[in-house]
């Protein structure tokens, strides 16, 4: 019997996993061709189509499901403002993203404009539902405030995306399109995913580590630097600001990620459970990784601004950030979230009546660790291929990344058979 409470996030998680599998299968089918084209110029119809399949169909779909699951929990079992609205929002958003991916693939600008607007409508419904839930609860802390900030930036990213979609269809704004793209990326990649992952980690990591008594001051500094970085970055693009404004945006964002990694180390130091699971360990490693990458980019971009802002470097940074940190962290957390969801579904009401398995028995932690290691290693090979412009490394890394990801998706899907 599937409980009503968890059916809504399930819908998002299953759709996200399906999109993830489609993305990887599509990559495997023509890996060398699309990666070579993407490394030279990421802005082409098939590239846009794949990027939105990955970011909207997978990452955002999973993230929305996580918000629907975690917000009522953080608010101590408070109900969502409207579960029915959640289902309607799912239908609108899923239709929008599928149409947008198809529109990009067919290079049909009218379809892109139409479905970019549908995606934005889906985002607005999501923001209204979550916003109303959070406001009614009026229980603000670093998790709920961070979630609200994330959803607000998703709305901003969606608005910029819709304007770009309409510009594709009607060519209203001409060269302003590129400025909108910059803002779209800052709001979506750094704002939506940045706030969501950092704030949810403040709940999830102490819970899985059984950490108690750790300091929480850094959480405010992370949010402050991230907010400053996102808005400085977005406004720098929108106002066509000089290069040093972009550098300040990057520096603030790097400071946020470095402080975030330090804070996760604090949580880890105060742990009472030594083995929280491979997914939780990897989420910390990936946080250290993105903190290191962004911190290195600060002096590099000051010394070689043209190289850092060039297409090749943008592709490398984009893959490391979106696939490496955002995608990797989502995959890592899914190794805990999917078993939890399924356990609650299948065994939650049986606890106390009969012997039920533990969460650790729902998924093989050694396989989680092995596959996440393989995925990260493959990503490094792929990025090295981009850096050295080596089709061999790109094909090798891209193939291993897609294959490893498909195996990982299979490992997660196997939980539903437990």
């Amino acid at each position: 019997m599937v409980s009503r409470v968890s059916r809504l996030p399930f819908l998002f998680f299953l759709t996200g996993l399906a999109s993830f599998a489609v993305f990887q299968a599509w990559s495997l089918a023509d890996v060398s061709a699309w990666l070579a084209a993407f490394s030279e110029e990421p802005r082409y119809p098939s590239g846009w189509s794949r990027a939105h399949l990955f970011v909207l169909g997978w990452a955002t779909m999973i993230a929305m499901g996580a918000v629907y699951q975690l917000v009522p929990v953080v608010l101590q079992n408070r109900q969502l403002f409207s579960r029915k609205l959640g289902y309607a929002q799912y239908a609108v958003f899923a239709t929008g993203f599928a149409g947008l991916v198809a529109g990009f693939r067919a290079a049909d600008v009218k379809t892109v404009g139409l479905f970019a607007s549908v995606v934005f409508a889906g985002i607005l419904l999501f923001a209204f539902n979550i916003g109303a839930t959070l406001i009614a609860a009026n229980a603000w802390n670093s998790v709920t405030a961070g979630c609200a900030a994330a959803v607000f930036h998703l709305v901003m990213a969606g608005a910029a995306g819709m304007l770009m979609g309409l510009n594709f269809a009607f060519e209203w704004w001409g060269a302003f399109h590129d400025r909108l793209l910059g803002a779209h990326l800052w709001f979506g990649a750094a704002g939506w995913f940045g706030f969501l992952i950092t704030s949810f980690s403040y709940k999830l990591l102490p819970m899985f580590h059984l950490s108690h008594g750790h300091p929480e001051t850094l959480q405010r500094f992370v949010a402050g630097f991230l907010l400053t970085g996102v808005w400085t970055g977005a406004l720098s693009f929108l106002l066509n600001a000089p290069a040093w404004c972009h550098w300040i945006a990057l520096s603030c964002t790097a400071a946020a990620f470095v402080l975030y990694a330090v804070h996760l180390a604090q949580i880890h130091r105060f742990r009472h459970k030594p083995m929280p699971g491979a997914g939780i360990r990897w989420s910390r490693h990936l946080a250290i990784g993105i903190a290191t990458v962004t911190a290195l980019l600060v002096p590099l971009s000051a010394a070689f601004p043209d190289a850092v802002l060039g297409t090749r470097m943008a592709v490398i940074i984009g893959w490391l950030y979106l696939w490496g940190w955002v995608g990797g962290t989502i995959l890592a957390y899914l190794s805990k979230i999917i078993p939890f969801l399924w356990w609650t579904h299948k065994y939650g009401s049986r606890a106390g009546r009969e012997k039920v398995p533990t969460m650790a028995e729902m998924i093989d932690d050694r396989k989680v660790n092995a596959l996440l290691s393989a995925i990260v290693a493959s990503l490094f090979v792929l990025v090295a291929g981009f850096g050295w412009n080596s089709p061999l490394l790109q094909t090798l890394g891209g193939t291993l990344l897609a294959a490893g990801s498909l195996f990982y998706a299979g490992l997660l899907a196997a939980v539903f058979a437990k």
Partner: protein
Amino acid sequence: MDRETVMELLKQVHDPELGVNVVDLGLIYELAVEGGRVRVRMTLTTPGCPLHEAIVGGVRRVLERHPGIEEVDVQVVWEPRWTPERLTPAGRERLGFF
């Protein structure tokens, strides 16, 4: 029905993430047994625990299904806050606590 029997019943309910039962986790703050009536005052390791329903429901169900228990009252409280010091030696060992 005596207190020891009820405690043994409660040990059948585990936090499925931590793999430790609610007694050894130190989640049971107060247990009152009067004839067939059992009153439990308990907490969870964190407020806003995703397993709230499963664990608290498990405590209720394991008591309700015992033929010697007629009435069950489970109350969840957040004060005093749970701390790791409440773990029993068996809970610490199971968790690998350090």
